[in-house]
């Protein structure tokens, strides 16, 4: 099954890269860009038939390795 994992840095943790990209957008005149966060997306193909089970396994992978619980939250999307 196709799985998309989005790793989001928690809003309270600084994101200097996102801040720099936002300043660059403002330089170009896109002053409406109010926040920019450089999240990461991981695309996976995961063996399994049961979407709920695949999701729960991938969430486990996030907690154990893919996301750092100090800095990041994650969202798991399993393609239907």
């Amino acid at each position, binding site marked *: 099954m196709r799985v998309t994992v989005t790793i989001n840095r*928690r809003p*309270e*943790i*600084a*994101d*200097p*890269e996102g801040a*720099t990209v936002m300043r660059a957008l403002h330089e170009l005149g896109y002053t409406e860009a109010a926040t920019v966060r450089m999240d990461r997306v991981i695309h996976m193909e995961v063996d399994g038939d049961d979407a709920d089970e695949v999701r729960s396994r991938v969430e486990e992978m996030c907690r154990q*390795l*893919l996301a*750092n619980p*100090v*800095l990041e939250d994650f969202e798991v999307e399993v393609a239907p």
Partner: protein
Amino acid sequence: MRVAVAVFPGVNCEHDVVYALRALGAEAQLVWHRETDLSDFDGVILPGGFAHGDYLRTGAIARLSPVMAEVERMAKQGAPVLGICNGWQMLCEAGLLPGAHIANRDLTFICRFVEVEVVDARSCLTAAARPGQRLSIPLNSYQGAWVDPTRSGRVVLRYVEDPNGSQERAAAVTNERGNVVGVMPHPERAMEDVLGSSDGQTLIEGFLASLVPA
């Protein structure tokens, strides 16, 4: 007194660390990250570099290496465990020190001497220093800013001037017991005046003074 210096693929400061330890009379030995037995050693140092290419996050892959189980055992037993730069990032990822590291505030790789002040001498890094003492040590990192939302780490070295946005201007942090320390600047690169500073000796001496026979 024997110190293990763990070598991960992509680490690049291991020989400097061995040199620094031997210069002060200690017995130091490189051990590969697949090593599963460090029972012959009284302490361990995780040197700096880019273990496993810093893929995913700095230290995230390295903490899965077999040697880390031994590092954890030694940390729990109270033996001195020191992570320098990338080594500190590994200790955070392994949960042996609180917090994590993010990119420097100004998104620059910082490579220069910085002044740090000893704020707490109760750690295996600062045991031979006195509070208030200032040391000149080279910083060499990109993911150098430490963040700890739990505020549970005890800062032992603080930057005199903030170079990277590290929380509490922390340059080195220890656990409650003081035997596990992470430090961002490189004491092993400040061992002789000809290198620009010999202030690193005080820190390596503190580590050696903290060793007790296994």
